[in-house]
């Protein structure tokens, strides 16, 4: 629905969960609240798990996740999911690194601890410092499933807890390798081609680049009232614009 639908509405809407969603949610909230100050929308992070838990317990009305809900989560709380965007995940290295291309096999071996030195993949010699995300994170799930095909992860893989932290770690360390959402790539880190494909939003949108995930909004039962209006707004042209501006690829409603 366009923003006019909020006219005359009143009440509060609490949103929490996945941190990747926040830019979209915040921008939407800003526009809606500026349009109609009687509406109060709060946006919180916490992570996918927190989102599920909070929406399930009724503490918030929309809980965001960066991964599809698990079966037991759906059955336990009766949640309904709305995927509204695609986010690609790219393997990244330090800009000072000579490497410009990696194959999925190389990445699998690096994360399994079989390849330990950059020399072995054609870089300057030096131990590879491997960074990953915490288990359960949407980014990691996509990466393990689609980039390294559920390959083994060495216990010595360093774990960071957010895209930002990953970026900081890789941007600082010439010998580091990690992975982030495509939206986070800027000149401080470099994404080598993965199996020959440039990891970019275009390639993700047109399906060439396969390492992608969906971003979801979840509600307890079918959304009503303000909640429904909000979700509709995200899928409206204006909402799609916001999603795009935040670095994600919008999905049409009902997918």
């Amino acid at each position: 629905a366009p923003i006019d639908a909020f006219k005359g509405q009143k009440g509060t809407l609490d949103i929490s969960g996945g941190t990747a969603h926040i830019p979209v949610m915040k921008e939407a909230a800003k526009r809606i609240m500026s349009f109609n100050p009687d509406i109060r929308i709060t946006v919180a992070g916490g992570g996918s798990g927190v989102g599920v838990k909070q929406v399930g317990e009724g503490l918030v009305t929309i809980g965001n996740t960066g991964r599809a809900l698990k079966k037991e989560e759906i059955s336990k709380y009766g949640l309904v999911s709305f995927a509204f965007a695609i986010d690609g995940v790219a393997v990244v290295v330090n800009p000072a690194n000579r490497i410009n291309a990696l194959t999925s096999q190389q990445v699998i071996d690096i994360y399994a601890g079989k390849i330990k030195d950059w020399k072995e993949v054609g870089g300057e010699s030096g131990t590879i410092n491997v960074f990953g995300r915490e288990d359960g994170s949407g980014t990691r799930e996509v990466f393990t499933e689609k980039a390294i095909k559920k390959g083994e992860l060495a216990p010595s893989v360093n774990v960071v807890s957010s895209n930002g932290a990953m970026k900081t770690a890789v941007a600082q360390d010439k010998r580091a390798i990690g992975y982030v959402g495509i939206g986070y790539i800027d000149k401080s880190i470099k994404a080598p081609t993965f199996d020959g494909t440039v990891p970019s939003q275009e390639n993700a949108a047109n399906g060439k680049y396969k390492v992608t995930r969906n971003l979801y909004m979840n509600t307890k039962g079918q959304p009503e009232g303000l909640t429904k209006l909000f979700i509709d707004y995200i899928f409206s042209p204006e909402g799609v614009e916001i999603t795009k501006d935040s670095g994600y690829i919008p999905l049409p409603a009902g997918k």
Partner: protein
Amino acid sequence: MDARIKLLRILAWLSAFFVICSFLMLIGFLIYHGAPVINTSLFFGNTAPLEAITGSRPVWDGIWPAFIGTLCLVGLTMAISLLPGIGCGIYLARYSEGRKKEMLSMAVDLLASVPSIVMGLFGFVLILFLRRTLAPDATTCISLAAFCLALLVMPALVVTTRSSIESLPDSLVTTGISLGFTEQQMLLHILIPAAGKGILGGIMLAMGRAAEDTAVIMLTGVVVNSGLPAGLGSKFEALPFLIFYTAAQYTDQEELLRGFGAAMVLLMLSAALLYAASKLQRTMEKHWKGAR
């Protein structure tokens, strides 16, 4: 003997060097990155400052609501924790003996070692429990966060109060008693003022902690945007969470710098709180001593 002092001297200089260097590096780093971005737009975004301060228009892209949220949070936390914390410290120092004292002081020490994240979890489960029993509409909010933070800062308050009262010379108590002061009067007019500096140290610790902790409030009601806190039952913004969030999710360099700016503001806010507290303590001490 001499060896011991020499050792201590080396240690003292080393420690001082370590602390001062680390701190200066930290501050230098913060100022280097944060100072350039501190301006009204960091605080108020595109909103006119006056309108923002009066709350007539919400602030977007500014840290003003988080700033106020943190102030409210600290105030609320102190309101909940100050009296019981200091009271418990005094109780430990003066009115408990033997096993009871041992148990209580151990419990306080244990409380000090409960991770803040567990404290947050406790608050979270508590509110779930409340929803199922007493208050079905209860939700995570600023009061819950303050309550959990109060638990978190309590040990520092208790321990410092206790130690500063216990280290007072015995003769002070004896004098007070011999002048016919009741326990209450002795506490109010002699012991607490005499231990004022130490207790203040505890209060500073507690305030600092309340202003900076992220893990607790993350689970108990802090949000990325909500505007100014609307009441005791509302969700709120807070600076430490804002910083944490920025550190975790920044997408470009500019956003990161704003994070540094927020960190500097938080630091200055805390320093101002500390300064105010010590000013207050000095005035009160002057009054108590009646000295010029």
